[in-house]
Each structure stands twice: as structure tokens, then as C-alpha cells.
């Protein structure tokens, strides 16, 4: 593990200094991701990283600080600002047996590589049978006053193409275990790191380098009886906060963290709905055609006989993420919004 103390994260978004694990073994979300990358680079020399400013500079969020010193230029490749080519290089090198991890400075810029992602990466194996063990990773999501072009949640764009597994973890342990699974998976993966969690969320993370989290499995983060909140990413933490507050008022909320948003773990979601009969789908991608729209459809289609109320969605509107703090707060679902939605749902 890289142990250099770094002064501050780049880009100034909600940063506190990155560090190694704390003395009691806790790791931030960012440290957990860096550990996953480091351990997999150590484990398999076919694994290499490419992206903008990841080597000398250590990445815009300093996730890859120290990697160049340890692994050298042949495995930590600084590229020009050319996202189509970054993705294309990942594909071409994967076709030749390497296992590339391409970093996007912000997940927003995945749209600059859109064609290579959706047309080549997502479709090549179905067409021609050549495995492409490519990981694309980058910081996504809002809530950190990063404004319109640094706050996007691009997962629906790419879930729609099929052929790419998409992970949006909420906790350091899940982030580490899922990223390691993605790197070892023979299919393309999109690993979205919620930038609001990088340094804000910390927990004890296993030191076991073989501890993987399976792709495509959801996790019940809080058990409850009255209402299920199905969510992922940073919204998991808001849901847990709301659940705690609701418990004080006698409403028992179960929080299901999807962890992988494509393909979805339908069974875990349905098991929870069978128990509670009421579902709130909470998500940070746009409401219309967002990930949660699909979750709501699955519940309506497969758990109809178990429902005691309509499936509800809570998600931002389909327009750009605004900058001004009151506007961004109004745009994103807040804890109070979640509580109000659960109240409506449990009263129905």
C-alpha cells in the first residue's frame, strides 16, 4: 500500500488530506480503492493503468499517488487528453491479453469516449467472442458543489448498451471487494466511485487480499419490516440516515444497497419486498429512465402479488446538476425528502 501522506486532493472538491489507513485499521473509501488497485497490480502483471495525470501527478483525486514509483511507466501510463483513444487503447491492449484499468478524471468525461465504450467495448464480445477484461473507473455523482460538468451519474447511459457490468459501491469494503472482482472479471466493467464518499466514509476494511465482493449481488445494509428503500451509491448513506430517524418514529425501514447496478440482483430486492410489501426506489441518476426506473419495473413485474402500495421513486429531475448550493440541494434527494416519501408510502 502506498503510504505517502498527501497534502490535499486535487480539484478542491470536498477534500481532506488523503492518508493511509488509520491506526485502528479503518480505511476511507478512497484508500480502499487505492488498496484494491495496488493489490491487483501486485498480483497480476498483466494489469496496468492508463489515464490522464495518473502517473507523475497521482491522479486528480490522488487515488494513484505512489503507483508510478512502484510499478513504473510500463504499467502506469499517462495519456494525452484523448478519451476515445484511452478507451480504444484499453480495448486493443485487452485484445492482446493485458488487463487495463482506464481512469477518467471525472466520470462526466466518459461521454468524450462514448463511441469506443458503447460501440466497441460493449459489443465486441457478443459480435466476435474476444473477451475484453477492461475496467473503466472514475469519480461520479454530485453533492460536493462540483457543478454541472463534474457531478454526473453516467450509469444509465452505459447500462443501456448492455455488455458492460456497472458497479456503484457505497462503502469502502464493498468498493475494494468489487473493484478487485471487476479487475479479475473477463468482461468489461464500469466502476463508478462516488466522489462525495472518497474521504467522508471510513470503516474497517479486511486486510485479506482475496476478499472479493461478487459482481451482481446486492446487500441489505439495514433490516426492517415496514418499507424497503432500494438504492445505491451515496444515496445509501442518506437512506440509512433517514431510516435511523424514522425508526425513532416507529417506522421500520429496510435499506437494500444494490452495489452493482447492471446487472441488478433482482432476488435480493424481491426478497425484501416480499417482507415489507412497500418499496421506495431512491437513486441519484435522473428520474426518467434512471437505474431506479428499471428497479421499479422489476418490482412491479415480479412482486406484484406482494405489494401493499404503489412502487415509489425518488430521484433528481432530468436536467443539468446546478451549482448554487440551495439549487443543488433542491435537485438532489435529501434525508428530509426520503423521510417524507417513506411517510407517504407507509400511510398509503
Amino acid at each position, binding site marked *: 500500500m502506498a503510504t505517502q501522506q498527501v497534502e490535499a486532493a486535487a480539484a478542491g472538491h470536498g477534500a481532506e488530506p488523503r492518508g493511509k489507513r488509520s491506526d485502528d485499521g479503518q480505511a476511507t473509501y478512497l484508500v480502499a480503492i487505492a488498496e484494491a488497485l495496488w493489490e491487483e497490480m501486485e498480483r497480476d502483471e498483466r494489469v496496468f493503468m492508463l489515464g490522464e495525470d495518473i502517473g507523475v501527478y497521482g491522479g486528480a483525486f490522488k487515488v494513484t499517488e505512489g503507483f508510478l514509483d512502484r510499478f513504473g511507466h510500463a504499467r502506469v501510463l499517462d495519456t494525452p487528453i484523448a478519451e476515445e483513444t484511452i478507451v480504444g487503447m484499453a480495448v486493443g491492449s485487452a485484445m492482446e491479453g493485458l488487463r487495463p484499468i482506464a481512469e477518467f478524471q471525472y466520470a462526466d468525461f466518459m461521454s468524450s469516449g462514448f463511441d469506443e465504450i458503447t460501440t466497441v467495448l460493449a459489443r465486441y464480445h457478443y459480435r466476435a467472442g474476444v473477451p475484453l477484461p477492461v475496467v473503466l473507473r472514475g469519480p461520479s455523482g454530485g453533492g460536493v458543489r462540483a457543478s454541472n460538468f463534474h457531478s454526473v451519474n453516467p450509469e444509465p447511459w452505459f447500462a443501456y448498451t448492455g455488455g458492460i457490468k456497472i458497479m456503484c459501491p457505497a462503502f469502502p469494503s464493498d468498493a475494494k471487494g468489487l473493484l478487485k472482482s471487476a479487475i479479475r472479471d473477463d468482461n468489461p466493467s464500469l466502476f463508478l466511485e462516488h466522489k462525495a464518499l472518497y474521504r467522508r466514509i471510513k470503516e474497517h476494511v479486511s486486510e485479506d487480499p482475496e476478499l472479493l465482493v461478487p459482481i451482481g449481488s446486492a446487500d441489505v445494509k439495514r433490516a426492517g419490516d415496514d418499507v424497503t428503500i432500494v438504492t445505491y451509491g451515496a444515496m445509501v448513506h442518506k437512506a440509512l440516515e433517514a431510516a435511523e430517524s424514522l425508526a425513532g418514529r416507529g417506522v421500520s425501514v429496510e435499506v437494500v444497497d444494490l452495489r452493482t447496478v447492471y446487472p441488478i440482483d433482482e432476488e435480493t430486492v424481491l426478497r425484501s419486498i416480499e417482507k415489507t*410489501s412497500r418499496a421506495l426506489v431512491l437513486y441519484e441518476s435522473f428520474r426518467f429512465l434512471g437505474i431506479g426506473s428499471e428497479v421499479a419495473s422489476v418490482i412491479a413485474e415480479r412482486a*406484484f*402479488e*406482494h*405489494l*401493499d*402500495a404503489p412502487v415509489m421513486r425518488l430521484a433528481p429531475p432530468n436536467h443539468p446538476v446546478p451549482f448554487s448550493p440551495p439549487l443543488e440541494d433542491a435537485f438532489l434527494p435529501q434525508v428530509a425528502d426520503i423521510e417524507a416519501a417513506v411517510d407517504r408510502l407507509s*400511510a*398509503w
Partner: protein
Amino acid sequence: MTSIQMPQLGETIVEGTILKWLKHEGDAVATDEALFEISTDKVDTEVPSPVAGTVTKLLVAEGATVPVGTAVMEIDDGSGSGSQTGVGSGGSGAAGGSTGPAATTATAAAPVGPPPTATTGAPPVEPTLPSASDGPVSAAAVPDRGARSQILSPIVRRLAKERGVDLATVVGTGDGGRITKSDVLAAPGGGTAPAASLGVVVPTTPAPAQVAPPVQAPPSMPAGTGEDVQPMSHIRSAIATHMLASMTQTARAWTMVEVNVEHLVRLRTAAKDGFQQTYGVKLTYLPMVIRTTVDALREFPLVNSRLIGDDIVTPRFVNMGVAVSYDAGLIVPVIKGVDAMNTVGIARAIADLAARARAHQLQPDEVQGATFTITNPGPYGSLVSVPIINQPNAGILSLDAIQKRPVVVEEDAIAVRHMVYISMSWDHRLIDGELATRFLARVKHNLQTWDFAEDLGL
């Protein structure tokens, strides 16, 4: 003889115009020699001949516009019988050039698409009969609940039926006085799981008083050379006891009907691939038979009943036992609340229970509480079966093999149709022949007339 058709040059093109005949009747043509010029929305081009021969007929005037696929010219290529070329794309056809007659019937090689939707022309699905507790509750029985009070969610309907809760007596605590799931669970009787009180199904050990005398091995034929001896497994022993008990304790009678399932076979053939993709389980006939049987059970509740002492107990719900064979023998997992399920739900439940039965993962309560049972020896080829009643049920239905048979259809014509024998062993203590026959007739009627397409989500 080869018939030349207007070709389709581009996937969106629907018609073309003959600009000019380059060959006329009586002209000799070589393979790939230009026959005529055409004009379409996308292209003006010459059409080369797929064969060598002599032009015998021009079927269209110069300047005429005809749909793609229209025969426009005939060429005698010495092949004798008529063949045609030019439609769509080359699904088949021998190679051109020197290898022999070039053109055969061209079959369109369209991209693979979803299977066609089956239309059977059957009348619309009959509504299932509501149970006493299922309909709108009477206004007099409950306090005013406001505009939305009559809305019953899917789970409320299901639980009320399963647990025999009379919704007229339940006070709703939901918005506008709607009855919620927890209201049903809190209602008298609502919290009691009916399954627990329903007697047992294999594997189990009956009370000593019910045990039949043990079967004596024939004394004249002890095991000898060339024979293997193994003790009966626990499961085998339980099955033996249970079956024998049924034979000695029920007044078993048997009735059979023959059912024309032609439209079900067509529907399944057309829909099975899409169904499996959509729902992840195979589409078989069993869920459709169960669905129609449940409907008949609701019309004739006595068939769904059981005897406890001198009392006839008639549930207002149906728990369907489905006999499943597995390595250890026979087990009857139960689809609880099957009357609240559509055919997709039933198909899923069967797949799930059967898979877990074969993996030895069934929970004890999943093999208890059947109110009626179905056995399905059809896939193994059985034509007619006489099953033993799964106590304490009043009847057991057998679904045997679907087979093409010559049958007399409308207008006294003889036709080949997919037919199946469906029969029931029934307990004459509870049911009489008229009821058993009317019940089976209802199952037959349902199977022959229901359009499952919508129920299957197709």
C-alpha cells in the same frame, strides 16, 4: 423454367420500375448477362440473369412499376419444373456459374426476430370467480372509509383469501381507510397460518392407529443368488406407508376426460423461447393446467375439501400439491395460495419448488398443507394414469402425455389434433360422480377455450 422477380435492392425498398427490357422473348441469355434495367427509390441498375437459357416470356410492360417479388420474366433454363428467383435474399439456392442450375426457390433470410404472437381466435379469458371475501365489501358493514377505501392491494387480496379473513369485518388504517396488509394480519384469524393445521403430506410418519399392517414379503420367494438386497430408505418407507394408508382409508373412484389442447400446443411452440427469456423458466403445460384446475376448484369447492372426523372442511384458498420425482423417490411440494397467482407466477413456483426438491432443499412447511394435488406423468409418456389420492385431499388430478390423435372436429371431419387424457382419482366419501365429472368438464372447457396469451404476459 426460372421465374425472374423484381429484386429488393435495399432493405426499405418495396417496389421497382422496369425501365427497359434488354432481353426479349426468344433471346438467349448467359448467366450474369443483363436482362433488364430497373429503377427504384435508391438505385437505377441492370439486373443480371441468375441462369443461362432462353427468355420465354415477359410478364410486365416496360415502364410498369411492380412490388418487389413480382415475377417479371420467365427463362427456360432446361430445368423443367418452375422455380423462381429474386425475392428478398438468398436463403437457399445452389451456386451459380458452372455448378448446375442456379436458381431454386429463394427464401428470405430475414434477421432473427421475436417469435410471432400466437392468435388462437379463442374467446376472451373467462373471469375467475370471486370468492365470498374477494368482492367489494358491503358498505353497511364498515365505517365510512372515504373515496379510496375500496382499493385492495394485491397482497391484501391474497392474504385475505389465504387466511379466510372476511374483509367486511376489517377496519382499514391506510390512507382513506384502505385495508392494509397489517390490517389483514391483525384481523381475527388473519395471523394464523392455515398451512399448519392442514394435515401432512409425504414424507411423514402417520399416527400409529393409521398404520396399515406391514407388507409381508412373500414367503415362497426369499432373496437369493443374483439378487441385490437393500433396506428401504426412510423416504421410500414413508411413501409406502402413506400410499397404502390412502388405499385403505379412501373410497377411491376414477374419472377421465379427453381434452383438445391444440391451441395450447401452438401457443407454447410460438411463445416458449420468448417466455424463457423474459421469465427465466421453461414454459410447460403444467402451469396452464394448474391455473384452469384452480378455477374449477373455486367453482366446485368440495373437490378442494377434506374430512376431519365427521366435518367437511372447505378452504377458501387453494394450496396445490405438485408431485415431483427425485432421486430419493417422490415428494409433493406445495404451491401455497396458488389461486392468487397468474400462470407466470405458477410456472415460477413450480420451477423453484421442483429445483429445490431435487436439490433436497425444501423446508418442512413447503411439503405440507396441500388442498388438492396434481401429478404429471405425461412427460414420461404415460397415456392414462390412476393415481392414489394424496391424503387428506379429496382428489388428485393426473395430466398424461399430449399426443397427436385423429379426432372428429366440426362438420364431422376427421383431423389431427393434439389431445390429452386428464383424469382424477377422487374420494367417494366426499364427492359423487356427477360432481367429479362436472369438475373435470370445467377443467376441460377451460383448457379448450382460455386464451393464455395475456395471462402469460405475451
